[in-house]
């Protein structure tokens, strides 16, 4: 587990330091969100996998586990199979109100703000 602080070559020679001051410290992973062309097939698979349906329409499915979270998996009907985003929980004291000016300046699709990131899409929920 511990690595030597004076590694000059190989693993540990390039460190990945923690952020000295992150914007927020997320404290839980809430959900994943996928788009799927066939909700019936998605539902069957996820039920067989062990998830429990909590809400269902012809456009969306929500599943939970047996933990405290209201849902952990969301599926939206869409033309292709793709990952849409993930949900993280942040401490309530730091939940900032959205800044419309900044959001509209930086984000091409304000209605999807928070689900856009090059590597994936993360959203504080």
């Amino acid at each position, binding site marked *: *587990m*511990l*690595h030597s602080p004076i*590694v000059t*070559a*190989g*693993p*540990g*020679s*390039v*460190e*990945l330091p*923690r*952020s000295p001051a*992150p*914007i*927020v*410290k*997320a*404290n*839980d*992973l*809430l*959900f*994943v969100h*996928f788009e*799927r062309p*066939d909700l019936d*097939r*998605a539902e069957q*698979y*996820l*039920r*067989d*996998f*062990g*998830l*429990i349906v909590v809400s269902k329409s012809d456009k969306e499915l929500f599943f939970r*586990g*047996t*933990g405290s*979270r209201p849902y*952990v*998996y969301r599926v939206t009907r869409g033309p292709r*199979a793709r*990952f849409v985003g*993930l949900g*993280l929980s*942040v401490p309530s004291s730091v939940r900032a109100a959205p800044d419309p000016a900044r959001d509209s300046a930086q984000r091409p699709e304000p209605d999807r703000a928070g689900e856009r*990131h*090059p*590597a*994936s899409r*993360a959203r*504080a929920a």
Partner: protein
Amino acid sequence: MRVNDTQRPALEPPEVTKLGHLVLETPDFDKSVRWYMDTFGFIPSDVMCLPDGTPVGAFMRLDRGDEPSDHHTLFVALGLESKVDHVAFEVVDLDAVEMGQQVMMARKYRHAWGVGRHLLGSQIFDYWRDPWGQKHEHYADGDLFDSKVPAGYHVLDRAGLYQWGPDLPDDFIDAKLTPRRLVSILKTAMTDRPRLKKMLALKSSVSRPARPWR
């Protein structure tokens, strides 16, 4: 241990206790990892490196201070494209993982890898693909760290992915050369030689057999 009793887990989908983690691939590893650490305060638990020490994968956990957190909630790795490699869900124990496998086999889903025990994170794992090929993991018995534990650094290779279990199947990491990927590789080759070199080194590292008897 039982006397005059038996162990008969039910043949039914396992109880999923929670969503545990996601594994993301990204063409820009350094930028992506920094973003998750600087934005949401993720802290590295274990870092996978090329033999020269270049980080190419990071198991990251939530910083909850003294309250223990899963060894990883996100694993971000260098890859050809931005995608989710898999999503992982916690089940209660080894029986749940194995009975889950029985159910998924019975329903004829496509198996990806398992049952085995990972090295970093220590989870007992089993991976199954959904109808669109997306891997979903059942896992149990993983490590929890509080925020005091410093990051570990390791060479990324096939052997270091698991302690016991079947060898990693070659198709676990989707490396089929689709037209889209070919274009992406060619683009990288022309515009970003260092990144291409990193990817080739990564590929050669995970191509080596995991065990001496393979």
